[in-house]
């Protein structure tokens, strides 16, 4: 039981952490001072949530591992994040579209975890829900601003959406682990999550004048540890310090 719960907790953590790392790559590069700080704030909020998950995973491991071991010392196949979040930063529209798709998923996910039978997951959700709500508000406003902005901003946003939307399907395809967690009353109901996600999505797309692409969904297995080529490069940078100077602290 602890082993599957531990893996489920890691899955929740990894999706937030990998995106938080992607956002941290933008620090100092934001198109304006204000958006730079906003994206960095979101990154830090997510890292805060992730720490709680890893501390819980460390507890579930029976004290064999620490939060840092989970964050920095796994191999690529041992990270269970959604493929969407490891996609690289291309331009601001791309970052916003990825953020909006994640925030929409994340907010409705955390909303469900509020009532998880697992007390720690529920407590973490209570702490994260306000942040998640703000993130969704922030990225929704930017979707509308860019999508319904100038012809260039619209074009870039639509192109980013065409590229990233096919990754969304993975969010709602339940793995054996997710079915087990749902049956135990611990994990989220992905069918309900999909309905909530789509309702928010439709409203924003309409306001942003963005349309869904015809391209079929991508087959992704991030939740099983199978990643795109970006993940290796991401981890090389993310894990560098701990690999080069083991057990380093600051």
């Amino acid at each position, binding site marked *: 039981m602890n082993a599957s719960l531990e893996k489920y907790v890691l899955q929740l953590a990894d999706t937030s952490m990998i995106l938080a790392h992607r956002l941290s790559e933008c620090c100092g590069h934001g198109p304006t001072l*204000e*958006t730079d700080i*906003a994206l960095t*704030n979101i990154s830090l909020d997510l890292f805060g949530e992730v720490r709680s998950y890893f501390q819980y995973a460390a507890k579930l491991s029976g004290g064999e591992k620490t939060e840092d071991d989970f964050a920095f010392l796994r191999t690529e196949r041992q990270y269970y994040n959604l493929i969407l979040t490891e996609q690289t930063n291309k331009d601001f529209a791309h970052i916003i579209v990825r953020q909006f798709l994640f925030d929409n998923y994340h907010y409705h996910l955390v909303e469900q975890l509020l009532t998880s039978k697992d007390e720690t997951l529920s407590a973490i959700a209570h702490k994260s829900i306000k942040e998640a709500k703000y993130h969704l*508000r922030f990225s929704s*406003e930017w979707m509308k601003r860019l999508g319904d902005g100038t012809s260039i901003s619209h074009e870039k946003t639509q192109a980013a959406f065409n590229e990233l939307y096919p990754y969304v399907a993975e969010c709602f395809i339940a793995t054996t682990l997710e079915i087990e967690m749902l049956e135990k009353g611990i994990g989220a109901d992905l069918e309900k999550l999909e309905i909530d996600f789509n309702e928010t999505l439709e409203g924003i797309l309409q306001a942003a004048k963005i349309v869904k692409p015809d391209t079929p969904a991508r087959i992704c297995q991030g939740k099983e540890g199978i990643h795109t080529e970006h993940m290796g490069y991401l981890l090389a940078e993310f894990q560098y310090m701990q690999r080069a100077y083991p057990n380093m602290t600051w």
Partner: protein
Amino acid sequence: MNKEREWPLYEVFIRSKNGLEHRHVGSLHAADPTMALENARDVYTRRQEGVSIWVVPSKEIHASNPENQGELFEPAKDKAYRHPTFYELPIELKHI
């Protein structure tokens, strides 16, 4: 960046606690008032500085001209009697 393509400037006012007044804390650029509020939240309230935000387009603020300082403010200099310091207050009255 071309001057005309820059986002307009907004002045930001934060109320630090309920019951206190909004105070000017700085300014920022934003394309519209919604964005100005969000930017103000991210730039000026990340360390729990406030419970309420006002943003005002800077161009809507009319300011006195520093060149007119003489006639505007100097006449008040020698009118100390305008300060209510010549009244004797009862001891019971504190914090005034």
